């Protein structure tokens, strides 16, 4: 009997088509695994009834012989995606009990393709965080441990539940969202593959907004092939999202030839940070060598405005967030503070939002309101937008010079312990995004590929940045890197 917990999406697809097992069997296996992994706190809501019904329907389609690739594949859905009739809270107290009357475009597409929803996945509140510690549901724990230590580690964030669940084999794949690195950083921390597509590739309709000009959903899975399969099902034009691109979605899986001969891979010198652990530096160099060995040309490049990316990001993202989160006011849905006699609408707003939002969300809402306020708008927001343009031009320049992809570390360190950053300056936490935010600011596709382990046995990832709309070629290079790295480590089960 196949060990159903160790499958990839591609394996499961092929095996179900062959009739080796059913979607219902597969789903039961994962529902059980989720139940046994409560301690990880990866899922915020379990939806076994929906999962069983979807799996049964998937089995009928598979039996008919024309099932799409994602048919019968058990998934976890990040709590940021609105799922009809299913609690959707963005891991925030302020959306207490909110059940949307609508289904996000991406989950609709996945479900139409036959995918199975096991439940909703924990995350940082409103996707604001890099460690999953800002969640109202409590932090997610990574299945990974440092050597023999029992210290609870972060799976990263904000898609920490997605990363933990995929890494711990609680699902075959998960949806994530990435505003500054929220797919790629947790993927790197947990030894899985995470793709942030080109801005506009996946619809944002029905995804709770954090920073609209940066948010992009993508798959979090075990292999590059799985990412290609799942991305294809998630992507596509949506007339309901004005920023969605009206472009055909290529067959990403078909692009995975592993042949990267003649490809030019850029190594940006600005991503070599002071104080970066040697392990990261080594991983990066080795990654480049592997790509060279596979026939690619390694080119030193410069992205001169990189150092301004993080500050610009932490102006633009909070600015948009402060406005996007204004709708959570206690008037229409979710949490509403109890008022005392004689108190009015102002008190209701103030108390509802003070009670409903966690510290990090409040911090970013205040930063955002500040940078947009009269007298500061030009100095912060406008300036940050100018920086954003320059960063975009940096990339355009190197792509114009023939660079196919850019290779960088995914994160400046391996996963850290939950609570270890609790008393640190918030900016230290923001540094987690230092290698990933440029991609969001420039609207480019990026993928995090597991590439090795650090000395304590924790996974480390490398990031490939692709040309706009050329996820196919980027994933093929990621595929080559994955093959060359031969990363096969799994967390030892302790839960």
């Amino acid at each position, binding site marked *: 009997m196949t060990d159903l917990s160790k499958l990839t999406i591609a394996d499961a697809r092929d095996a179900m088509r062959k009739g080796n097992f059913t979607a219902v069997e597969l789903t039961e296996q994962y529902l059980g695994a989720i139940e046994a992994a409560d301690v990880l706190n990866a899922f915020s809501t379990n939806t076994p009834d929906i999962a069983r019904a979807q799996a049964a329907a998937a089995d009928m389609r598979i039996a008919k012989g024309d099932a799409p690739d994602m048919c019968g594949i058990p998934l976890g859905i990040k709590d940021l*995606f*609105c799922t009809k009739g299913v609690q*959707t809270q*963005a891991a925030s107290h302020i*959306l207490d009990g*909110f059940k*949307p*009357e*609508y289904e*996000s475009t991406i989950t609709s597409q996945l479900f139409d393709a036959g995918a199975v929803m096991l439940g909703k996945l924990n995350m940082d509140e409103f996707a604001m965080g890099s460690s999953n510690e800002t969640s109202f549901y409590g932090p997610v724990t990574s299945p990974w441990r440092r050597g023999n230590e029992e210290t609870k580690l972060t799976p990263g964030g904000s898609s920490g539940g997605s990363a933990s669940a995929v890494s711990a084999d609680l699902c075959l794949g998960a949806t994530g969202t990435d505003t500054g690195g929220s797919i790629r950083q947790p993927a790197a921390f947990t030894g899985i593959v995470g793709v942030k597509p080109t801005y506009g590739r996946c619809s*944002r*309709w*029905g*995804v*709770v*907004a954090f*920073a*609209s*000009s940066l948010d992009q959903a993508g798959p979090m899975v075990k292999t590059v092939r799985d990412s290609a399969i799942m991305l294809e099902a998630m992507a596509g034009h949506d*007339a*309901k*999202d*004005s*920023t969605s691109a009206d472009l055909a979605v290529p067959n990403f899986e078909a692009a995975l030839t592993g042949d990267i001969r003649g490809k030019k891979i850029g190594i940006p010198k600005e991503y070599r940070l002071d104080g970066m652990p040697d392990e990261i530096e080594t991983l990066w160099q080795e990654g480049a060598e592997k790509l060279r060995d596979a026939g690619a040309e390694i080119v030193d490049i410069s992205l001169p405005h990189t150092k301004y990316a993080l500050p610009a990001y932490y102006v633009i993202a909070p*600015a*948009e967030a*402060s*406005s996007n*989160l*204004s*709708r959570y*006011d206690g*008037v*229409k*849905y979710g949490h509403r503070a109890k008022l005392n006699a004689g108190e009015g*609408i102002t008190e209701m*707003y103030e108390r509802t939002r003070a009670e409903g939002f966690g510290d990090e969300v409040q911090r970013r809402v205040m930063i955002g*309101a500040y940078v*947009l*306020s*009269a007298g500061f*708008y030009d100095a912060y*927001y406008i300036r940050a937008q100018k920086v954003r343009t320059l960063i975009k031009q940096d990339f355009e320049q190197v792509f114009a010079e023939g660079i196919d992809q850019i290779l960088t570390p995914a994160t400046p360190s391996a996963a850290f312990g939950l609570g270890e950053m609790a008393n640190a300056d918030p900016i230290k936490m923001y540094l987690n995004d230092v290698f990933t935010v440029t991609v969001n600011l420039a609207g480019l596709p990026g993928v995090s590929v597991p590439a090795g382990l650090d000395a304590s046995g924790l996974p480390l990832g490398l990031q490939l940045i692709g040309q706009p709309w050329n996820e196919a070629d980027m994933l093929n290079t990621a595929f080559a890197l994955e093959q060359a790295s031969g990363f096969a480590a799994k967390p030892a089960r302790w839960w």
Partner: protein
Amino acid sequence: MTNLAYTEPKAKVIAGAKEDWELVIGLEVHAQIASKAKLFSGASTQFGAEPNSNVAFVDAAMPGMLPVVNEFCVEQAIRTGLGLKAKINLMSRFDRKNYFYPDLPQGYQISQLYHPIVGEGEILVDMEPGVARKVRVERIHIEQDAGKSVHDMDPEMSFVDLNRTGVGLMEIVSFPDIRGPEEAAEYVRKIRQIVRYLGTCDGNMQEGSMRADVNVSVCRPGDYERFRESGDFKHLGTRCEIKNMNSMRFIQQAIDVEARRQIAILEDGGSIDQETRLYDNVKGETRPMRSKEEAHDYRYFPCPDLLPLEIEQSWVDKIAASLPELPDEKKARFVKNFGMTEYDASVLTADVANAEYFEAVAKGRDGKQAANWVINELFGRLKKEDHGIEDSPISANQLGGIIDLIAKGDISGKIGKELFEIVWTEGGDPAEIVEARGMKQVTDFGAIEAAMDKIMADNPAQVEKAKANPKLAGWFVGQIMKATGGKANPKAVNETVRKKLG
């Protein structure tokens, strides 16, 4: 078509306790775009629907919902811009105006602050025949309307109706070119007239389809001219904005009251605070809308959910080619082609439906006659019955038929008015009615002579008197008219009487 010549009116002068003052006024007119669907959602804009029945998920600001701009609304804004001879910006952009209010579910209004779709234009505000003010339009932008908060249904709770939330508005912003309360009211009237001609807004002020925010300041005579020369606002007084005015009458009253308030403060040695005020038409005063602490910082920034609005010149050209003849041109043409007075032309062109009705009546007929009948008889009667032209029981064809019968001499003007009454109340073809009811006037000289002969024979004393004093001939005219049931052609009767009495 060239416009009529005009001169600009003098600025209104208000005598304060110490000196004379002039007014400087600018208006922001919010005109609801005549569209069946809202600006960023597919929800209906129908007025008077059950509360919260015209609400899409976007309007209710459900999490993850996104706006998609309604192209029809954009087209109406372009159309309006072209109607105001304004520059159309091929690239415009939507911005978010952030503030908290229960009837603003998103916590921001999507508007266009930095890059409006329409740039500078102009509006000729008619004051009286030959007198008009050219008011420059600074911009028109598209924005969402807010919903409605209801505070008087429950002693402790407020209710919110989101039906209007997200309805598309055009905000038409003028330069401070308006110089008196009457001009301000006429300015709004003219915008209303133009958008109704264009069909881009129904102009229904009672239903809130058109509202105005009025900016008022006062200055000393001469200061305004210095401002216009230099463009420097230091020559003008501090302005106050009176929000949400929905009638021409209240606009006029509010400006007058506000100007006098400002003058009194200034003459007392005080200064004006720039603020937003509301007009209370019951008390006849304006008062501040919110305290200084509550003053909003709207934190405008480009809406990241919407791409810049880029439009093709060819589309603009296509819309321009479809514009109807506008009021100024129509009025000038009526004066020129029909030889009517500017006043009559103004009346007839006030509303496009009126103008169309008139043109249908005037077609192939004497324009002045047609104008007289339409203005004096028809409009008078419609007004009396409180009907609009679309409810007129008499069609242009029927009225034309009456005028034709008079022109041919079949009936007199007096009978024509009777005929008008019959057609108004009973309907029918005027010529057939005249025929069937024997209303045709008698121009048969023989019949008239016979009647005269009989009257002369019956009243020999009157004949003698009339021969001595020709002024008494009128008695015979009256007698003949009486004898013929009023149908005798007056001209023929007069002639006959004069002849017979020698």
